Every structure is written in C-alpha cells, then in structure tokens.
C-alpha cells in the first residue's frame, strides 16, 4: 500500500499519515482549520529524568513553542488529540482517549489520535519508563479538564446562563434548569478559530465521578491489526523508492580493510553506496538487494575485543570505577558484629536481546535540505535530531512520522536505522527503506547489559536480617534498594546502567524496566535464602522484615489468592514467592514449578500488582500477562553468546524466546488504589519472573540458582554440584 492510498485509512480512530498531506510546520496550528485548539503546558523538564535515549535530545523544538499536549475540537464535535507518544503494543491508543473521554465528557468514539509525528505533535522525550500514564497522563487529563472549562465558558455566553448551571453529556452542554436548551461542543467550535494556551493546573475528576476511567475497554487498534491494515514503518511505500541492504561488520570492533564490488557489475538496477562508514547495496526490490550484498567481497581487520560470554563476568567484577552509594543506614560494622549467621552470594545476569517481532525499519525521503522519515522508534523527536545531525540540516527540517511500532521494550530508543535510511536517501536522491534483517537486529541491538550483584548479609540471634551490604555492578540503581526493614544496610552501584563508553564489548541499552529485573532477581533470591537460613516460611519472613504498607498489601494479597500454606523452604513443593517495587508500583508473585532433567516447567504464576489508579483495567491486565510471559525468557533461556566482538546468536533458531508451550496458568490480581495517582504498568510486571522461578526451583530441589537464565545445563550443573557437596 502506498502512503496516501486509501488503504492506509484506519477505522479505529487512529489517524493515518499521508505523504501528500505534509504540513508546513509554521502554520502547524492554523492548518488545523476552524475549531477549538487547547494547548497544555507542562513543567519544562518533563520526562527528562529517566531518558532511555541512546543520544539524549539536546534541542527542544521552537515550534510549536512551549506546550506538550494539545487537542482540537472540530466543527463536527470530533476530538483529535496530538501526542508525541507512540503505540508499540502497550496500549496508549486506548488509554489516552479513555482519559480524554472522561475529563472532556465526550464519547470515546468521537476521539482520534495522532501519535509520534514530529510536525503535528508537541515535543515528547520518548515512550519508555512506564511514564505515559504515570506522568504524561496526569497532564493529559488536566488538559482535557481545562478544555472542558473553556467550552463551558463559551456555552455560558451562548446560552446566557452561568457555568454553574451547565452540565455536559457526551459532548453536549445542557442547561440543567431547562434541558431543552443545549449546545454541542461542535456548535461551540463552529466558525471559530480559538486558540487557548493554558498552564496546566491539574483539576480533573476524582474517582467518585468516573464514568469511563476504570472501565475495561478493548484495544482500539485491533481491527486494523487483525486485517493487515495497520501500517508499520516497513509497510510505507513511496514512488521510486529503493530498499537498502547494508554491509555489516562480522564483529563489534572489527574494521573494514578492503572492499571489492566487481561481482556487482551487470546486476540490473543495483545502486552501490560506498562511504567510509556506510556501505550499502540498494535495489527496487528488497530481496534482490539482499541477494546482492553477499556478492560484495569485504575484508575486515579483527576486533580487539577478547571477551566472551564466560569471561565477561570477571571483566565486570574487576572494573575499577567510582562506586555510588544509592542508600545506606545504621552501622554496617555493628550489623556484622550482630550477625550470628552469615550469608554471602553473587548473582549473575547475561546480556539479553530485545527481539521485538518487528526489526528496526525506516523509510527516508530526503529532498534538498529537508527530510521526511517514517521510523519504528520509541522517540521520534530523538530520531529527528539524530537524523538532522547526520544530514547536517536544521532540526526543524526533518519530520519523523511514527506508524505503529511492532514492539520496542527499550530497543527502539536507538535510531540507527533511521539515520542509515536518511543518509542513503541523501546519497541516492531517492526514497530509501532500511529494514534490518533479523541477523542485523541481533547484531545491532542494544542488549540489556550483563551484570554482577554481590550481597553480603547476616541474621541476628532473633533470626532477623542484621545487615545488608549490596553491590550492583552494571545493572544500574533502579530498584536496587532493598525495600525491607533492615537496621544496618548499604546499597552501592558501580558503573550505572550502561557503564562507561566502550566498557561493554558492544552497545547496551534500556531493556523493559532497566536493571530492575536483575536487582529483583538478586535481592529476592537472597532474601529467600535468608528465610531458609532462619527456618521461616518465605512469606512470613518477608512480612516480618517489612515496614511498608503497600508491600505488605501485595504480599498478603498474593498469599490469600494463592491459598498459601506456610512452610520453611525447601519444602519440596516447588513453590516460590517474590515481591518488589518499580516505577511507583508494588508487585508480588507466587509461582509453581516442576523440574525434569534440568528443564524448568513453570506450571502456575499468580501476580498481584498495585499500580495506583488504573485507567483501563483490561489494558493493565494484558500488560501484566505480557510481562510475566516475556519474563520467562530472561529467566529460563535468553542470553547472548559472543566471542571477540562477534555475536553468535543471530536468529530465533539459537536465541530462544518464550513459546506457547512455556506459558503457565497465569492469574493476575490488580489491587484497587483509585485514590492514588497512576503508577507504572508495563515494566513492573516483568521484574519478578526470574526471582520467583529461582525461588520455586530452590523450593523444589534445594538447589539455588545464582545465574540467569536458568538454562537446563545450569540447573543440571547446580544439581550435580549439590550432590557432590552432600
């Protein structure tokens, strides 16, 4: 389907993007035509605190100046909202209109969304960190409430009654003393061009007034996605476009020494681009480009890297970097003195791929000093800046349009493919699509960094944790604090999340709840070991060590829903428990496993999540199920094998992600907390999968898994080691 073709039309309130409708950015708002436009201003540093971008955005757009969310009410009463957030499966295409429908008092069917288009949408830092509802949603709702207030003022003038006498139902303002007197939002917007800029003072509805928030709604993009109509970056077509296949290094750190393109001579329609750091063959058919790239004879000097997936841990442990104290309290020396039983352990976590089903894709059309790029990206504004820098053009000359994104998980905050497409379009003078092969995806991915976490701890003579000395290397600070009531403690972080430049043998980056899963795996495994050492049931042990009401609530709810029978571990039942906090939410999980010949089968998982106010309970449940399921991978199978800069896992034949047959019976419980603000949804739901399975394996076998993934070989080795020890 070509861009601009009717087939791109969406029936589900998702606006299509068309090549023939490119706006001139200066009349950004004017071109929206008649109607009421409400712009909301957020605090300036909004979203800056948790950037996951590979290249942080340094320049804010001047136009549209100074606002971050806006919506337009057309003469027909239809509401169009514009946001720099993107839809990658996590569901804002449903939850954002749901919020607007609530606070604006319109039907959700009268709302459509324009997302991730840098010419049409206000600036946004990026879609990550479970921040769409948590931070952006609050302002978004306030903007809707303000828009409603403006409409009520207009209605008050029109109907000549005070605002206090007006009510709104589904976009119709009604005089409560004479319900026959009414005016629609569309009528109020008619023949006008009203532009209101407001500094947002949050005054949206409270839970008692909710009609739509909190109601489970089905996804609004499903119809397009089940009929093949949904457009992703790789589906956009432009006349005269070329498909590129890029020459890749055999290893990270390898350098191109020589290239012989003689074999390409005579292949019809092939375009060769040869730049010092970018060599590509292009053709009007992607498969021909793909066949042809293998005919290039390239020689490389090898990578200087001498690390592999086994020696990496020593590399991480030996790194001498300034430690950062994340938290501390009491007196560690005193704690060590009080400890009558010591327990020290080291926990390892491998490099893990994002492996979204959609590989990175972009279509770039560079014309003179302007560029339009359709990209699968989590941060269109970041991509815009990266592209502008690569092309040497002013940032506003680049428009990035984000169609549906086929999964991100942090991996699409890195926009190399968009830069490649733009450079190749500039070089060839034609629109160019770059869609990475799965092999390129595994090579260019910014993996979740491998990590080492060392914990020293001890129990006092009452069986309580006397001290906790926690050192995390390269998993980052996020969720590294211990959560519990421990008198003497210290949490130290070394290397942050990504480490210094060049420290890892290849690029690393944010991966769903960055660092949180590794920290939860180490902490909850260790607390479980301490419970065993104390001879106390692991739920009871955690509750005894707890002083946080929200943590206690999720743990107790998990035990209640499961029908937990207390027993000290290992009980032989194969039951594990874990709890944690991430992105403002609290989670607890209980799992049951069966281990046969080292292979862990997860039979049942119960997940309790308290995430504050829930906008769409159906969407929240899906995110929890998705988190648990995706988490089975990093827990059981996913790890990148590599040596001397070469990535040995290049496709799904050796890199094994969760399958239908792995998925346990899943029960999700989302606890009501409507009076609290909304907290994170998509990320907290993945952080405990590793820990809860490790604890269940220990409960089954008495074997402690200290490294994720818990592959069959590792489980068998641990069983053998235990046999030897006994």
């Amino acid at each position, binding site marked *: 389907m070509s861009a601009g073709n009717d087939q791109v039309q969406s029936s589900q309130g998702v606006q299509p993007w068309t090549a023939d409708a490119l706006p001139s950015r200066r009349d950004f708002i004017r071109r929206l035509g008649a109607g009421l436009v409400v712009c909301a201003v957020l605090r300036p540093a909004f979203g800056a605190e948790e950037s996951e971008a590979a290249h942080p955005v340094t320049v804010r757009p001047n136009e549209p100046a100074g606002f971050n969310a806006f919506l337009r009410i057309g003469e027909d009463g239809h509401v169009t909202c514009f946001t720099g957030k993107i839809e990658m499966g996590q569901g804002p295409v449903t939850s954002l209109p749901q919020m607007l429908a609530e606070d604006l008092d319109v039907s959700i069917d009268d709302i459509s969304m324009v997302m991730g288009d840098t010419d049409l949408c206000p600036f946004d830092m990026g879609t990550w960190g479970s921040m769409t509802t948590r931070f952006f949603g609050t302002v978004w709702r306030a903007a809707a409430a303000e828009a409603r207030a403006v409409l009520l003022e207009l209605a008050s003038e029109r109907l000549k009654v005070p605002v206090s006498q007006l009510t709104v139902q589904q976009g119709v303002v009604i005089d409560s003393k004479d319900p026959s007197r009414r005016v629609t939002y569309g009528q109020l917007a008619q023949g006008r061009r009203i532009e209101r800029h407001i500094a947002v003072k949050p005054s949206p509805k409270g839970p008692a007034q909710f009609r739509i928030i909190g109601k489970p709604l089905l996804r609004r993009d499903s119809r397009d996605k089940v*009929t093949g109509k949904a457009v992703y970056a790789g589906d956009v077509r432009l006349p005269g476009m070329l498909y590129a296949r890029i020459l890749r290094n055999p290893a990270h750190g390898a350098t191109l020494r020589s290239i012989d393109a003689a074999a390409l001579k005579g292949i019809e329609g092939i375009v060769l681009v040869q730049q010092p750091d970018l060599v590509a063959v292009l053709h009007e058919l992607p498969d021909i480009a793909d066949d042809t790239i293998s005919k290039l004879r390239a020689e490389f000097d090898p990578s200087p890297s001498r690390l592999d997936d086994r020696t990496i841990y020593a590399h991480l442990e030996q790194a001498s970097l300034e430690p950062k104290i994340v938290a501390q309290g009491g007196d560690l020396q005193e704690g060590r003195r009080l400890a009558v039983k010591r327990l020290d352990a080291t926990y390892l976590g491998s490099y893990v791929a994002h492996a979204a089903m959609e590989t990175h894709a972009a279509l770039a059309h560079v014309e003179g000093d302007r560029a339009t790029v359709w990209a699968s990206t989590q941060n269109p504004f970041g991509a815009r800046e990266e592209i502008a820098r690569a092309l040497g053009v002013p940032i506003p000359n680049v428009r990035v349009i984000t169609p549906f994104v086929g999964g991100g998980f942090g991996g699409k905050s890195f926009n190399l493919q968009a830069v490649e497409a733009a450079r190749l379009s500039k070089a060839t003078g034609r629109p160019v699509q770059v869609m990475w092969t*799965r092999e390129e995806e595994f090579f260019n991915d910014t993996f979740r960094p491998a990590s080492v976490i060392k914990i020293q701890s001890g129990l006092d003579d009452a069986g309580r944790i006397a001290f906790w000395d926690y050192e995390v290397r390269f998993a980052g600070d996020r969720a590294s604090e211990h959560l519990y009531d421990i008198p003497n403690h210290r949490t130290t972080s070394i290397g942050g999340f990504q480490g210094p430049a060049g420290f890892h043998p290849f690029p690393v980056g944010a991966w769903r709840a960055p660092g949180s899963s590794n920290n939860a795996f180490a902490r909850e495994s260790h607390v479980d070991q301490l419970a065993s050492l104390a001879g106390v049931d692991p739920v009871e042990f955690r509750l005894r060590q707890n002083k946080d009401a929200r943590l206690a609530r999720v743990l107790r709810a998990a035990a209640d829903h499961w029908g937990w029978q207390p027993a000290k571990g290992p009980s032989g039942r194969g039951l594990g428990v874990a709890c944690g906090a991430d992105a403002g939410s609290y989670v607890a999980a209980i799992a049951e496993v069966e281990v046969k010949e080292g292979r862990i089968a997860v039979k049942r998982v119960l997940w309790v999540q308290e995430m504050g106010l829930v906008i769409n309970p159906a969407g929240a449940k899906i995110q929890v199920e998705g988190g648990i399921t995706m988490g089975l991978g990093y827990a059981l199978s996913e790890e990148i094998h590599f040596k001397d800069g070469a990535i040995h896992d290049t496709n799904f*034949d050796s890199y094994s992600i969760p399958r239908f047959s792995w998925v346990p019976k899943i029960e999700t419980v989302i606890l009501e907390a409507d009076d609290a603000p909304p907290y994170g949804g998509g990320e907290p739901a993945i952080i405990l999968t590793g820990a809860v399975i490790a604890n269940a394996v220990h409960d089954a076998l008495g074997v402690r898994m200290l490294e994720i993934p818990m592959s069959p070989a590792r489980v068998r080795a641990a069983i053998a080691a235990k046999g030897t020890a006994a």
Partner: protein
Amino acid sequence: MPDTVSFRLNGKPVQISVAPSRTLLWVLRTDLGLTGTKYGCGIVQCGACTVLVDHRAVRSCSVDVQSVHGAEVVTIEGLAQDGRLHPIQEAFIAHDALQCGFCTSGMILTAYDFLRRHPNPTREEVVDGMDDNLCRCGAHVRIVDAVLEAAAAIRGEKLS
C-alpha cells in the same frame, strides 16, 4: 529470468512477470503491495510471514513465488469476506489477543489452518498447534483463548 506466474490471490486472479525463484514474502510485500504479511526472521522460525496456500499455512519467507503457480493464496488482507471478519479475527478482537500486532497476521492464518484440521481442539492441542509461532509481547494466553472461541464459533457453538 522473469517468468509469468499465475495464481489466485485473495479470491482474484493475478498474473505477474517475476523471476520465479523470488521469495513469495517479498513478492507479496512489494510487487503486490500486500504488507499485512510480515518479515520476522526469514528462516522459518517465527511465523510472522504465514499465508494460506490452498488453505494450508505456509511460511512465505521460505517458498519461491513459482511454487504457488496455479494455487489459491490467501493473505491476512483476504481473510474477511465482503467486509465480514472471519471468526478468528473476531475472536482476536474480543480477547485483545494482540499487543504490537506484528505477529498477528501469522497467528491468525496459522490458527486458520490448525482449526481446519482440528475443528474441536483441546487447549493443549491449540498450544501445540500454535507453538511454532512467536510473539514477543506475551499475548499467548489470549491467543489460545481466541482460537478456542473461534473454533466454537466456526462449529456454530457459543462459548460461555
């Protein structure tokens, strides 16, 4: 060497001049403009490129276009009839059986072939039948629910 390949595509005859050894996936996505069929791995590991050839699920990344000469090919765009969604599509919507949607075309067409062969499957049979299709978002539980409901709908039953 280009050759003429003819087949029925989504109910309509097509005749294209194309190098016969080209991959069906890319001919569909580029020459024929049907982008609902997705590239995910290129080596028959993920199922995102699944189409129906004479009602059987085929990984279009791994077959030549000439292999469908004379055959009936259905892609995700051709599954709905006269604007009416297929019961599997309806069930995927009703169960929110997707997130990012990139594996969805392949899931639905794999389920179509599976249900043709197993009109009254157990849950375990659905899991087994779908096991070679990958989903990264973790919609698995809902996909199984949707396939079971679609099976009932096709049989003319209504699942509670």
